[in-house]
C-alpha cells in the first residue's frame, strides 16, 4: 500500500501512545494520531481535550476541540477552568500531544509570532493550552513537519518550554531527548528519508544517534484505520 509522509508521521506518533495512558490532545495532527492509536493498539487510551471532555470516544475525527461529538461520547464534561486546574495542572496526564510552528534544539516551541513581537511578519494563533500542557504532562510528544522554517534556533518567541518533550515526530523521522541530555537527537528515519534530508530540513546542526533506526512503514491495518478517520466535515466534501 502506498502512503503519504503525513500518514507515516501520524502512524509513527500513534505508536508512541500506550493502552491505558491518559493523553491531553490538541486539535489537528495530535488528535488524529491519538484517535488512530485508540482505533488500533490502544483501545483503552483516555483522550482528554481542553474543551473539558474527559474520556472522549469520537466516532469521527473532530474538526475542533469543542465538537459536540466529544461531549456526547465523553465519560465526563467539565468546565475549562476545571480541566486546566484539576486535571492538567494536577499532573494527571501521562502524555501531552502538541503541534508547533517553530521548535528549537531543546524542544522549546513557538506558536506566537514570526519576526519581532511588536511588529511580526507572521502573527500566529498564540499560546492556547500549550504552555501548561508542555510543563504539566509527564511526557510531551510534538508532531511537526520538518523544515528550515520550523526547525529554528533561536526561536522568535518562546511560547512553551521544552523540558518535558521526550519525542518529536516529523515527516522525516523521530527526534528524542536522551536522559540527561538537553538537545534533541535524530534517532529514527521514516522509510525513504535520509540523514541528509533531515539535516537540510533543520536550522541547526542536527545531532544523529549512533544507532539510527528506521521506522517500520505503516501496516495495512494502521492505514485503513487512519483513512477511515476522516473528519465529519471533510466527509461532506
Amino acid at each position, binding site marked *: 500500500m502506498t502512503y503519504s509522509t503525513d500518514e507515516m508521521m501520524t502512524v509513527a506518533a500513534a505508536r508512541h501512545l500506550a493502552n491505558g495512558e491518559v493523553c491531553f490532545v490538541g*486539535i*489537528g495532527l495530535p488528535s488524529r494520531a491519538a484517535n488512530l492509536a485508540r482505533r488500533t493498539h490502544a483501545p483503552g487510551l483516555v483522550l482528554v481535550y*481542553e*474543551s*473539558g*471532555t474527559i474520556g472522549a470516544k469520537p466516532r469521527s475525527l*473532530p*474538526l*475542533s*476541540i*469543542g*465538537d*459536540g461529538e*466529544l*461531549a*456526547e461520547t465523553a465519560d465526563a*464534561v467539565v*468546565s*475549562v*477552568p476545571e480541566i*486546566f*486546574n484539576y486535571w*492538567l*495542572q494536577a499532573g494527571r496526564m501521562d502524555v501531552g500531544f502538541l503541534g508547533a510552528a517553530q521548535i528549537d534544539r531543546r524542544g522549546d516551541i513557538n506558536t*506566537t509570532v514570526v519576526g519581532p*513581537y511588536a*511588529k*511580526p*511578519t*507572521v*502573527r500566529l*494563533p*498564540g*499560546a*492556547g*493550552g*500549550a*504552555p*501548561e500542557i508542555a*510543563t*504539566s504532562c509527564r511526557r510531551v510528544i510534538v508532531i511537526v513537519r520538518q523544515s528550515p522554517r520550523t526547525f529554528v534556533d533561536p526561536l522568535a*518567541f*518562546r*511560547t*512553551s*518550554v521544552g*523540558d518535558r518533550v521526550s519525542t518529536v515526530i516529523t515527516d522525516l523521522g523521530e527526534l528524542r531527548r536522551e536522559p540527561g541530555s538537553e538537545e534533541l537527537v535524530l534517532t529514527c528515519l521514516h522509510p525513504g528519508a535520509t540523514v541528509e534530508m533531515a539535516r537540510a530540513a533543520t536550522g541547526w546542526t542536527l545531532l544523529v544517534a549512533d544507532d539510527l533506526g528506521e521506522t517500520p512503514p505503516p501496516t495495512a491495518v494502521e492505514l485503513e484505520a487512519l483513512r477511515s478517520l476522516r*473528519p*465529519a*466535515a471533510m466527509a*461532506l466534501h
Partner: protein
Amino acid sequence: MAVLTSLAEAITANVGDGDMVALEGFTHLIPFAAGHEIVRQGRQDLTLVRMTPDVLYDQLIGMGVAARLVFSWGGNPGVGSLHRFRDAVEHGWPRPLQLEEHSHAGMANRYVAGASGLPFAVLRGYVGTDLVDHTANVAPLACPFTGERLTAVAALRPDVTVIHAQQADRAGNVQLWGICGVQKEAVLAARRAVVTVEEVVEELQPRPGAIVLPGWVLSAVAEVPGGAQPSYAQDYSTRDNAFYEAWDVISRDRDTFLGWMRTHVLDLVPSTT
C-alpha cells in the same frame, strides 16, 4: 435581575463604547448574533476579551470595533489563520490592535478570580515563557508555606460578558449544557451579563451536564434562535464546519470581507421577540 428583552435593546443597554466586553463560548455556544448586533450598533474602542477569538472576533476586529484584544488563542479551529486578526496585528488595518495575550490556563484562572471576587488567581504556569514579558497582568508569587515560585494572574472583570445558551425561563433563569467552557466564570466575573438563548420555555427541565445561571445574576436575556450559528447549540443545531472553512476564503481579502459583512450583518435588521 434579568430583563427579557430584544437583542437590540439588550446590547444598547449593556454594551457601551470603550467597554471591556467578553463574548465567551468554547467552540460551542459562541454568541455570534450578539456580536453582530454590537457591530450593527457601531460600538467603538472596545477591549474584546475571549480565550479563543475565532471567526466572530475576526469579524469584529475586521470591522474596527476593537482597540484592544485580551486572549489566549486566535485561530480558526481546525482550519488555520484568522486573516482579519492577522491583518490588524501585522498591518494595523482597519486600525491598530493592541494585544494582551495569555495561556488558556491563565485566562481561565483570570475569569475564576473575577467570579470569586478576588484580585488575582494562582497557577503553575508561564514560567520560562516569553509571555511574562508582554503583560503587566502576570506576576511571580511565592507560596507562603513552601516557598515554591508560582504565577499570579490578575482578575478579569469585564464591563459586560455576553454568552449564548440553549434555554431561559420567563424569570430569566438560564440553562446551558454540553461543552460549557468558561461561560459561568465569565458571566460571574462581569459587571453586567447578557445572554441570548435558543428558546424561552415555561419551565427549565434539569439536564445532565447543565449549568443554571439564576436570573438575578444576569442583566438581560434575549430569545435569539440560531444565535450561535455558525457555531452550534447542542440539541438545537450543529456546527457549520463548511462555513468555518469558507471563512478562510471570505476573510483573506479586505473587500470580500467587507462585502460579506455588509450583506450578512450590517444590512440585516435583528429579529425582535
